[in-house]
């Protein structure tokens, strides 16, 4: 970071050389001028290219920056172009560094990796319990937890300690329920799709999984997720995100 700020390149991802730049209307609110997507361009080396923009003169990490990162890469994928998405926030000192240290250094790996995602998109399936339904199940299975509940009026203040204990027991009980439900959901996808499990972030999360889906299987995949939602309605809530770049299927170079 010793060179001039103006030469910095924000790297969105690696694409085949000659890829058409994503476009959007000039007043598209998703891409402000003050975003890494400014001055979007390709830096090409051989058959590879880095899709870069010019980062704003401030530290990045704002909502607009994240949305721009996602938007640019989503456009590329929507055009049917394979892309290796960089992790958010990759900034290199200048175009020469991108060409030499990124593209030339990793030419073979990038070419291989690009091939592995060619014609494929990522879907992310997030499954969580319907809160009331799962809490009722917990209480039904654990009378001792039920007894800890504050059944009185607001004035019958339970102690903080007791609330904490109640909450902790509920969370533990959810942890016990989760594996079976997660396995059941995953099982419905069989082994037709490459899958990466993500860490779940909340106690009522059942499963957070990224699937790599061939373009010609997209409709079938979506239908399968919908079927899953229908079968588990009232117990599980399913959120489907994508198609997106294969964020979970590119590793470290």
């Amino acid at each position, binding site marked *: 970071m010793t060179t001039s700020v103006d030469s910095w390149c924000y790297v969105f991802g690696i694409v085949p050389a000659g890829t058409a730049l994503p476009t959007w209307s000039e007043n598209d609110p998703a891409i402000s001028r003050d975003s890494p997507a400014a001055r979007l361009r390709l830096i090409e080396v051989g058959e590879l290219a880095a899709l870069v923009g010019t980062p704003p003169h401030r530290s990045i990490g704002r909502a607009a920056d994240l949305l721009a*990162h996602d938007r640019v890469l989503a456009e590329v994928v929507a055009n049917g172009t394979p892309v290796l998405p960089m992790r958010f926030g990759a900034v290199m000192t200048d175009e020469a560094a991108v060409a030499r240290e990124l593209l030339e250094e990793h030419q073979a790996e990038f070419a291989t990796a690009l091939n592995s995602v060619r014609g494929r998109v990522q879907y992310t399936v997030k499954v969580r319990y319907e809160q009331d339904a799962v809490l009722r199940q917990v209480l039904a299975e654990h009378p001792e937890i039920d007894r800890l509940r504050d059944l009185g009026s607001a004035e019958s203040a339970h102690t903080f300690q007791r609330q904490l204990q109640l*909450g902790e027991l509920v*969370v533990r009980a959810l942890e016990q329920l989760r594996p079976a439900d997660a396995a059941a959901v995953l099982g419905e996808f069989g082994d037709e799709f490459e899958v990466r499990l993500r860490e779940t972030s909340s106690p009522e999360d059942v499963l957070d999984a990224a699937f790599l889906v061939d373009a010609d299987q997209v409709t079938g995949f979506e239908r399968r997720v919908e079927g899953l939602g229908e079968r588990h309605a009232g117990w599980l809530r399913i959120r489907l995100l994508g198609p997106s770049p294969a964020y979970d299927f590119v590793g470290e170079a």
Partner: protein
Amino acid sequence: MTSGVQQRRGGYIDRPSPSSLADVVEIILDKGLVIDAYVRVSIVGIEILTIDARIVIASVDTYLRFAEATNRLDLYEHGGKDLGEMTQSMSQGGAKGKTSGAIEGAKEKVSELFHGSDDGDDESGNGSSARQRPRSRQTAARRRSRREDDGE
């Protein structure tokens, strides 16, 4: 945000389009290609966000949230049912597509946090992120106050 994704709501799954800020944060943060340290690449100003996105699960906040949710069940459910009845009603209950109020935990916090540091940048946060603005949660405010993001 993903154009080419048809808008679809209702049905049996949630299919948000465009992606909310919280979704985007979840999908892209910590994911994607990382290049080795020899390359002069910096991950600018986001480490701290990463930490907040991974709010420790076994926290006091979480326990209290679930205690509250569990207590709240009474208000419209509890009637001294025995176990059998309870299990039965369970399989029917909850099917009304209730958006669990306590649900978005960590992601809301991240989202609020962005809004907190995002003033002066409103033109880019329209629509999707505005819709995402969560039910406020006092913990979010607390966390946000820890964050001093970049200046202009």
